[in-house]
């Protein structure tokens, strides 16, 4: 699971008001190289929740991202490279995603989060 996907996911459990962002407990992180596309990164920058993104990348062991970011930083190649790496190249292979409100744990196995809910959670 990439961080771009983690930044989209929220907990869907009945009664949860704000299930975003899910906290990451990483056991295994993998890096896979992806070709960079500057236009896509700029577009995603507007959609990304930056604080959640930084927290998630730190939970994955990547600490090169600044705490705050604004669109002027997109002109920097160095920033773009770091953003690209954290967003699309880091993969959570094994671990758990934790709902911020209920503490429900969604296991991640072989890079696939299990977001299935039990019957009483729907």
């Amino acid at each position, binding site marked *: *699971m*990439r961080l*771009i*996907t983690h*930044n*989209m*996911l*929220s*907990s*869907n459990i009945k009664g949860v008001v704000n*299930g*975003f962002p899910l906290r990451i407990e990483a056991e295994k992180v993998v890096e896979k190289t992806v070709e960079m*596309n500057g*236009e*896509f990164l700029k*577009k*995603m920058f507007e*959609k990304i*929740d930056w604080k959640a993104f930084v927290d998630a990348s730190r939970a994955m062991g990547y600490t090169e991202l600044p705490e705050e970011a604004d669109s002027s930083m997109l002109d920097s190649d160095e920033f773009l490279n770091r953003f690209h790496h954290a967003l*699309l190249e880091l993969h959570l292979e094994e671990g758990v995603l934790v709902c911020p409100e209920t503490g429900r744990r969604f296991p991640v196995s*072989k*890079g*696939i*989060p*299990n*977001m*299935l*809910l039990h*019957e009483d959670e*729907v």
Partner: protein
Amino acid sequence: MASRPEVVAPPEIFYDDAEARKYTSSSRIVQIQATLSERALELLALPDDSVPKLLLDIGCGSGLSGETLSENGHHWIGLDISASMLNVAVEREVEGDLLLGDMGQGLGIRPGVIDGAISISAVQWLCNADKSSHNPRLRLKAFFTSLYKCLSNGARAVFQVYPENIDQRELILNAAMHAGFAGGIVVDFPHSSKKRKEFLVLTCGQRSVNVSISKGKNEDRESCSDEDSEDEEKQTVCISDRHRPRKKQKNNKSGKGKEWLLRKKEQMRRRGNVVPPNTKYTGRKRKDRF
């Protein structure tokens, strides 16, 4: 599959390890999935600015349809309920991200972040109640409501569906309309029971803009296509109209004219039947001798 898989077992049981592997290694299915995915992507009508989009593939299975998205340069997130299918996708090293989830429980994606969504042969599974806790109407509502929420303004969703009957199609379409979508059904090859393909084309937001939906391929000029409509009532009427027996022609002439005959022959020709060529005698009355 001689029969419909929905009536055999729930999807997470039907697509077990053996079936998932068999499904993915069938070259015919791979070809069909690729064709349907390309058509869905075409109907998605993404802006032609060569910037990759973030797309959702609902019911992605082993990643056959997602592969088409990757080939077109897009990033995608795939969702499926079958762990076996997703495991095959991992083995195939698909480029998209994969989620194990049930679309009938709602998508659980943040609002307004998805640029488009496709689904190939998946949404009709929601019409079956596989557990005592399942209510098809509620599951469809949960699905479409959460989908509407996570799509960005002006984004589209295109679902290729195999409805079992008219009621199922109307159930799916009504659930989409109630969630706030505009749109309708595009039918490719409507006259061939074998080649017929139905696409649910939905538009999110921008209600004031009249979005045109393309005609299905080989669609008869005379047949009624669903048109984009803000009014659910009109949408329902439009669907009903298509299945109501056609009103008799208003002309007072007793017989059917040559025009009708030519149209009929063309129709038969399109269905692949053997039809005599049109000549100057076509539609002429035979001599009294017969």
